């Protein structure tokens, strides 16, 4: 009984972690959408689009990198954990 509970709890926590990671990606994608909308606006209104494109060239990669690092860490930890568990069961 208790083991099932534990398993369930682990699953819920893992799901929550997944959700949080995807939320971060959502944020990043949102920001990218927002910025491209603004670029579209500035092009449409002929309102010095160069500046907005320049800013976005810097901003977007930064957000993507940040999200990638988080994902990298998350994935890295969990791959290791699986291995760890596998070796545990092997023992």
């Amino acid at each position, binding site marked *: 009984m208790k083991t099932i509970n534990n398993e369930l709890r682990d699953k819920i926590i893992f799901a929550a972690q997944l959700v949080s990671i995807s939320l971060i990606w959502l944020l990043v994608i949102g920001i990218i959408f927002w910025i491209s909308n603004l670029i579209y*606006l500035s092009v449409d*209104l002929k*309102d*010095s689009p160069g500046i907005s494109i320049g800013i976005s060239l810097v901003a977007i990669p930064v957000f993507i990198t940040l999200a990638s690092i988080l994902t990298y860490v998350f994935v890295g930890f969990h791959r290791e954990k699986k291995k760890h568990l596998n070796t545990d069961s092997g023992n």
Partner: protein
Amino acid sequence: MPKWAMAIDLDKCTGCGDCMAACKLENNVAIVDAEQAADDRVMLWMDMMTIYEGEYPNIKLKRIPKPCFHCDNPPCIKVCPVHATYKNEEGLVAQIYNRCIGCRYCMAACPYTAKVFNWYEPEWADEFKTCMNPDVSLRMKGVVEKCSFCAHRLQKVKENARADDREISDGEYSPACADSCPAEAIFFGDLENKESKVFKLSNSPRAFRELEDLGTIPKVFYLSEKE
């Protein structure tokens, strides 16, 4: 496309202040109470600058009416975060009151301090609400506003011209201040029209613009005999 501009003849201007009153009345500019006025929150689309020159008793006093200069290269629109102020194709720098978020960046960026802010919701006595100019929308608290060169008048003039199927003639469109000036010191017209009074005045040797070195290219010319 016409390019609307104003020329103010400082040699003729007496500084009577009529333009300020005409402007307030025409554009439904809010009138603040005494307390707000003491806090320097008076809203004037048309302001009056006072400059003393010389040593007593040989003083020269200059009074200079100051509307929005409707710069060709306006510093205010560059900093607006929401497209609430922009330059239209006829060169008028316009405000969109309903979009303004009230960050007042444009006010800080304007070298001519031409913009004013609604610190509170503008209020009028009920009686005064009856005689508002229906052509000009009222502003709400928390937005920036400024001289529009009475763009609502342009709208009307355009409609009339279109109805008669003709061009707008010189002097037909004229903001309230130019219209009412008792010294006939304010001229208004189209810079692209080489026949217009304003075009001629803008090329007069007496003409100058405020803070020309900033490169804002104001469309309000001042005329003054250099003594």
